[in-house]
């Protein structure tokens, strides 16, 4: 406090409060008093700037322990897809954007069901990645996969996507097995304008979204809503509609506290089934998903910070279908299908501190309850609960200006598999301030999902029992041990950043689907999950970003991934070569053009996937930026996006034919 008079006043207030034993009350309140009086105190002296302002000791706000690591010191390889890249790509979904990540396989099981799997090993459901939206884990708690089109998330709300390639449980917790996708939405504090967007295109592509931004002195909020629809692939009943509403409100009462509240709701409807199928006739599937989240961060001192995050996700799905008359059952029709109700509640506390100079440490504890209720998938009306608790610690030792050591571990205790430790160590050595080498070793585990452990997917057609799946339980966790060598270089003169990675992942006890005899069911067999497979994944990856001037922006990614496994099916789940190149250039203030090229070699995803040949895809976007219209609109963009200019290719299976298509986009700012 610059003026002693006020300091005394505050001290006195605190003193009085202590006297009345309102300690807790006043600890909270006095902080607000501090803030208010801090302004008041300056009023009488406003006229004169004092020399004291030059010598005042300021509280450390951005200490080493709070600042994110530069890539040169990070324990793993990270690909960042920022807002500019998102715009330039012309993509309208998150999985499409992930094509820019080296080693990521992106496919569409149906037009409405994309999947993204780092290093493959996946079919329709990719269940080995942690996906976070503003710190909230969104992977499905029943099967561990990510239902991309059911997340209450608009692409327009995304500021950047960070993809950590490689296991990272020590920092990102459960399911950070093959990698982590960390989606960060726009911080409302930074937004100045409200926006609206309209996309119209072939194949029924429609999008209408709006974002309203407001600020008061301590609050910043963003309300966004959108409607999205498309018809999916040709000749496949896979259209979809999605309605989303999101609210995020950030409260900054002071520099010491930061509150973030958010809530969102998604209502999607997708078409499933096929006229030619006996059981799976065309029918809609309705999904509602929602979340609420609160996050509080407090700076305790220069190098100590505390944060708490609490969220709840809810997801329900309903799909019902009437079968065709079944000849073997007297030409009767049956109503099958059912509901799925998933909940996740997660509470996590984290403490960042500096135990010694050149160290920064994060320790935290979290508890999570995942639950599922689904008579059809779990074979019973009761809710199945999967509780998990975790303890984690991560330390970064900045040994000297060259050597940086990252050490971390997570101890997880789950209802299904007991305690497991996921440790990690990485050494980063800076050859120069801009060029660093990295060596890392990490181990992570993935606990079985509720469906893998407790699934009982069956339905009756009159007297006939159709048993799609029957878990036998007692599964172990899957384990991964990953060794890597990396290089991160920043050629600042040239505007080039380069990231190279060479790795070897050993995976054990991979959960696989196995046929087992089940005499009661039609056919006498069913499927269960067992820890059957092992795999070794070897590969190298490179990622570069080149911005030679303020007009040009080029990102490129290449990966060579080879899987050898006890199950040869797994070996084909990842294209050996994946390549992406996105370049954009501004022509003057108004025009921007971009071209994206994406190529993956042949791949054969699990389950319903087929061996599909090499895919080549070229996308182009041309955008025009316009200025203010009257005083109503501040400006905006009109863009034409052409996708897949090189002609049809098969995606995921033979029936999914990706065609050339175009859409127009108009966005405006207020």
């Amino acid at each position, binding site marked *: *406090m*610059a003026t002693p008079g006020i300091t005394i006043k505050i001290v006195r207030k605190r003193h009085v409060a202590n006297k009345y034993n309102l300690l807790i009350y006043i600890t909270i309140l006095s902080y607000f008093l*501090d*803030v208010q009086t*801090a*302004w008041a105190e*300056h009023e009488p*002296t*406003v*006229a*004169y*700037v*004092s*020399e004291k*302002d*030059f*010598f*005042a*000791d*300021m*509280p*450390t*706000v*951005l*200490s*080493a322990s709070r*600042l*994110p*690591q*530069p*890539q040169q*010191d990070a324990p793993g390889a990270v690909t960042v897809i920022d807002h500019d890249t998102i715009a330039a790509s012309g993509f309208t979904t998150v999985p499409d954007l992930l094509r820019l990540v080296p080693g990521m396989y992106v496919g569409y099981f149906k037009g409405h069901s994309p999947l993204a799997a780092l290093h493959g090993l996946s079919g329709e459901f990719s269940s080995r990645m942690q996906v976070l939206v503003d710190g909230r884990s969104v992977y499905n708690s029943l099967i561990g996969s990510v239902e991309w089109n059911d997340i209450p998330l608009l692409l327009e709300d995304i500021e950047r996507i960070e993809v950590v390639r490689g296991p990272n449980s020590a920092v990102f917790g459960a399911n950070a097995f093959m990698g982590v996708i960390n989606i960060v939405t726009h*911080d409302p*504090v*930074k937004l*100045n304008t409200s926006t609206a967007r309209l996309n119209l295109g072939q194949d029924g592509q429609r999008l209408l979204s709006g974002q309203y931004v407001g*600020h008061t*002195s*301590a609050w*910043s909020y963003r309300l966004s809503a959108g409607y999205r629809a498309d018809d999916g692939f040709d000749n496949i009943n896979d259209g979809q509609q999605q309605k989303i509403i999101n609210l995020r409100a950030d409260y*900054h009462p*002071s*520099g*010491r506290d*930061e509150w973030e509240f958010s809530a969102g709701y998604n209502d999607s409807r997708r078409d499933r089934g096929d006229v030619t199928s006996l059981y799976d006739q065309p029918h809609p599937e309705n999904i509602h998903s929602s979340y609420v989240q609160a996050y509080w961060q407090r*700076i305790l001192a220069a190098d100590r910070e505390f944060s708490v995050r609490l969220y709840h996700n809810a997801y329900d799905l309903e799909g019902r279908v009437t079968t065709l008359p079944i000849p073997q059952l007297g030409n009767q029709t049956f109503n099958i299908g059912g509901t799925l109700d998933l909940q996740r509640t997660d509470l996590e506390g984290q403490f960042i501190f500096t135990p010694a100079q050149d160290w920064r440490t994060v320790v935290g504890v979290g508890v999570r309850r995942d639950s599922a209720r689904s008579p059809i998938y779990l074979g019973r009306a009761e809710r199945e609960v999967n509780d998990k608790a975790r303890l984690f610690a991560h330390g970064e030792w900045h040994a000297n200006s060259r050597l940086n050591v990252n050490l971390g571990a997570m101890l997880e205790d789950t209802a299904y598999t007991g305690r497991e430790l996921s440790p990690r160590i990485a050494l980063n050595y800076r050859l120069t*301030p*801009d060029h660093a080498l990295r060596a890392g070793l990490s181990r992570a585990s993935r606990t079985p999902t509720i469906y893998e452990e407790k699934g009982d997917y069956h339905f009756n057609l009159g007297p006939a029992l159709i048993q799609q799946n029957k878990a036998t339980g007692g599964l172990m966790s899957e384990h991964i041990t990953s060794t890597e060598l990396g290089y991160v270089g*920043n050629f*600042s003169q040239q505007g080039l950043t380069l990231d190279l990675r060479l790795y070897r992942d050993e995976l054990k006890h991979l959960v696989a689907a196995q046929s087992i005899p089940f005499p009661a069911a039609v056919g006498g067999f069913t499927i269960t999950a067992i820890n059957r497979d092992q795999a070794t994944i070897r590969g190298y990856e490179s990622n570069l970003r080149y911005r030679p001037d303020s007009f040009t922006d080029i990102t490129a990614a290449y990966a060579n991934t080879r899987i050898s496994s006890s199950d040869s099916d797994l070996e084909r789940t990842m294209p050996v070569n994946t390549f992406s190149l996105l370049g954009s250039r501004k022509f003057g203030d108004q025009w921007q053009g971009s071209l994206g090229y994406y190529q993956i070699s042949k791949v054969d995803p699990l389950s319903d996937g087929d061996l599909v040949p090499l895919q080549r895809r070229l996308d182009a976007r041309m955008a025009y930026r316009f200025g203010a219209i009257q005083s109503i609109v501040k400006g905006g963009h009109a863009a034409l996006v052409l996708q897949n200019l090189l002609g049809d290719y098969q995606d995921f299976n033979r029936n999914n034919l990706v065609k050339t298509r175009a859409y127009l986009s108009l966005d405006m700012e207020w």
Partner: protein
Amino acid sequence: MVAVLLIGGLAQDSAFRHRLARRWQPGLRCLTALIALTFAVAVQAQSVPATDNIMVVMSESTDAYQQVAERMRVRFELNAPERAQFTLLTAQAVSAKGAEVFSSSQLVVTVGVQAAQLVHGYDLRAPVLHTLIPKASYEKMLQAKPATSTQSISALYIDQPVSRQLELIRCVLPQALHVGALLGSDGVVLQKSLDLAAKPLGQQMETESVRSPEELPQALRRVLARSDALLALPDAQVYNQSTLPNILLNAYRNKEPVFGFSAGQVKAGALAAVFSTPEQIGNQAGELLLQAGANGKWVLPAPQSPRYFNVAVNRDVSRSLGLTVEEDIVLQEKLKRSARSE
């Protein structure tokens, strides 16, 4: 008389002052040294010192003020040991005793704004040098109560010239062409000098005014949206202990570096700052006095900015922003060179 007024008027014009300084400073320095030397010799030879009384009034008796006063005395006595007798008092002591304490003072030096205001109120006949005073405060003080025609008043500012701060931004972030600044109620005055200083460096100022605390978050948001770097300017209305964390955090979230005006701000999380320590101000004040008293009477030069300064860079912040920033000392030398070539 007319000529004096004319020159005085011209000297107010900062551009002219710079030109003047450029032309005369090296010469003046040599001259000062020569005179000081002659004087020292003379003192030794004749040992008939013309001892004057210099009254030093400090805003407070805390370290920073003591350091300025002490360093000034030491620096002065190094060259002119017997020329003057220093008396140190706090503003509090002076206001208790009244203007009589100055009755035998040939020169008064104030350290800090509070001391300056107090002494300025006394209408002393002795010349007064205000040190450790922000330029804005000095100018405002004279505006509120101009010096009488017989008074000789000058200042040694605590703040760096805006051009030096912008030069630091250029050295650290050559690509930052849009420099943001939040201006308090005195903004209009500053705006012009900012624009003037930014132009030759190829920079464009993006300013927002903050007239009340409620306006700060909005203004900050607007300025961050338009700028590549934020320059903090000394104005307690905008930058104080309670606002700085928010400003730094918001700027950091925007990946925008903040350039501060004090070492404290760099510690707090600003990327870099150019600033003068109390010792450096004291040193320069001592030299200024040697120059002022060289001719046997006290003739104060025009108000000046710090000649000695340091650069500090927060390495955690630069590391985290992914910036490669040269060593503090290298930046300091660069700024010194460009200060000399001005």
